[in-house]
């Protein structure tokens, strides 16, 4: 039996999730023995862009028409498709200001003279084609990637717990950013797996791994407001990494309510 054929692809993004694969320094060479990486632009100069793939990893957002076409072509040739990173799964930072038209953003950054840019609203790759696995994280965690890869190669399906960051944060016995410091911490709404890295370093969770299933959104907002934190502050913290999904979950509703009250315009 020949080694499974693997492709690793990046759409628009920082390449951080692909870099995390290269950061598996101890395991990289063994991985390369077990699979045949046939298409990986970031690490290879000769790439086969036609062979059907057993497993394909895609990171980044769809932010250009080219991205979209590329993504569809990857889907078409792959048996198992894995979304790597928060950009691919939830939209990530590039999707943070989707309420502004691309035109406005472009003018703000490039002024005139960049009309040639191929640009469309930044959206997660998972919005366009079906994925077999989703591995969030900004960037992904190496141990989760290795677990996923080992499981895929042995035909299994790894279990990634659908629990909030508080789960890990408490076991590390951090001082709670909400209870002790009265800060906006997205930990209770965000999917665990990072080992509560930020709170363990004294920084509240920014929600970079995307929301846990069915977060109690309203209770979180109330919790912050009860501690005298303004809506502006809550919103700026929450709408960073998973903006599109937070919008869907009700941030937008809160925006409207606030506008009606004459708060943030």
């Amino acid at each position: 039996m020949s080694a499974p054929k693997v492709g690793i692809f990046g759409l628009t993004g920082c390449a951080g999730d692909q870099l995390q694969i290269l950061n598996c320094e101890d395991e990289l060479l063994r991985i390369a023995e077990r699979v045949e990486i046939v298409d990986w632009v970031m690490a290879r100069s000769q790439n086969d862009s036609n062979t059907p793939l057993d497993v394909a990893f895609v990171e980044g957002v769809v932010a250009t028409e080219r991205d979209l076409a590329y993504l569809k072509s990857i889907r078409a040739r792959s048996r198992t498709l894995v979304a790597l990173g928060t950009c691919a799964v939830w939209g990530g930072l590039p999707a943070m200001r989707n309420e502004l038209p691309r035109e406005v953003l472009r003018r703000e950054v490039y002024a005139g003279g960049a009309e040639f840019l191929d640009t469309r609203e930044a959206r997660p790759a998972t919005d366009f084609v079906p994925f077999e696995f989703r591995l969030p994280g900004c960037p992904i965690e190496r141990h989760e990637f290795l677990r996923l890869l080992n499981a895929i190669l042995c035909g299994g399906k790894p279990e990634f717990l659908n629990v909030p960051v508080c789960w890990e944060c408490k076991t590390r016995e951090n001082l709670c950013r909400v209870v002790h410091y009265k800060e906006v911490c997205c930990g209770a709404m965000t999917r665990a797996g990072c080992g509560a890295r930020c709170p363990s370093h004294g920084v509240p969770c920014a929600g970079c791994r995307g929301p846990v299933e069915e977060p109690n959104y309203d209770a979180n907002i109330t919790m912050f407001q009860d501690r005298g934190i303004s809506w502006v502050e809550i919103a700026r913290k929450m709408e960073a990494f998973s903006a599109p999904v937070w919008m869907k979950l009700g941030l937008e509703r809160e925006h409207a309510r606030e506008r009606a009250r004459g708060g943030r315009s």
Partner: protein
Amino acid sequence: MSLTQARHPLRHASPRGLPTGENPYLPVPARVLLQSDLVPGVRLYDLRFVDPGLAERFSWVPGQFVMLSMLGVGEAPFSLPSSPTRRGVFQLAIREAGSLTGHLFRHVKEGDVVGIRGPLGNGFPVEKFYGNDLLLVAGGLGMVPLRGLLQFAIDHRERFGRITLLYGARSPEQVLFRGELTGVERRGDAEIHLAVERGTTEPWGGRVGLVTDLLDAASIQVGRTYAVACGPPIFYKHVLDRLVRMGFSKNQVFLSLERRMECGVGKCGHCSVGYTMTCLHGPVVSLWDALNLPELIYT
């Protein structure tokens, strides 16, 4: 109830560990001897422990279950559909439902080794049934644990009065152990009544309808009968109510609960329904106990 007198003062004292080992979390290798499709999507596995001593020693009560492990995939509980009277080899009837069973179906071949620990749970109170008639009511995959009880009762035929099995399946193609059940009926070991919700292209001599219709057809002497029901939530909803209206005492009706299980030995808490750990105090409970659980058994 007195609070000082708890129902399980110190739980039932049991020897350390399980028949499969002193460490109750440690699976023991068992070989897949045979696998066959019972119906589309449901497979019957014949297993035998690699350790010959354990293979002969391993015994259980119908209604008990085991945990099946696969390397790197995980573990899940499956009830034992065979009878301990047929030692050496035990069987599992498994439907493809999640990732573990998917892996089992696709990657495990005859001769492969899987991990088993058990038997777990209380099983059916068979000794209580001795000298009485037995009414088994199965819905869909609920036939799996009841098949073990049926085999057991037939192997100890003299200890039971009349044995009646009422079994409802979705369609003729979904009837588990059909040939075997026909044989049981032909030998006169038990009365078997089958019903399917809808007939299909396959010729079907039995009834088309619900399992509750079979209760009307079967002649049952409620006073001297224990009823054992097993099926999906919707099945319980109708059947249990019907049995009570037929005059069964709630202590005469037993059923098997389904819950998420991780440890299987009453530690992890996942299967708790009130004070009942389904894996330890169940999965078999009387209807009275089931109705007195703090949460609904069928939703």
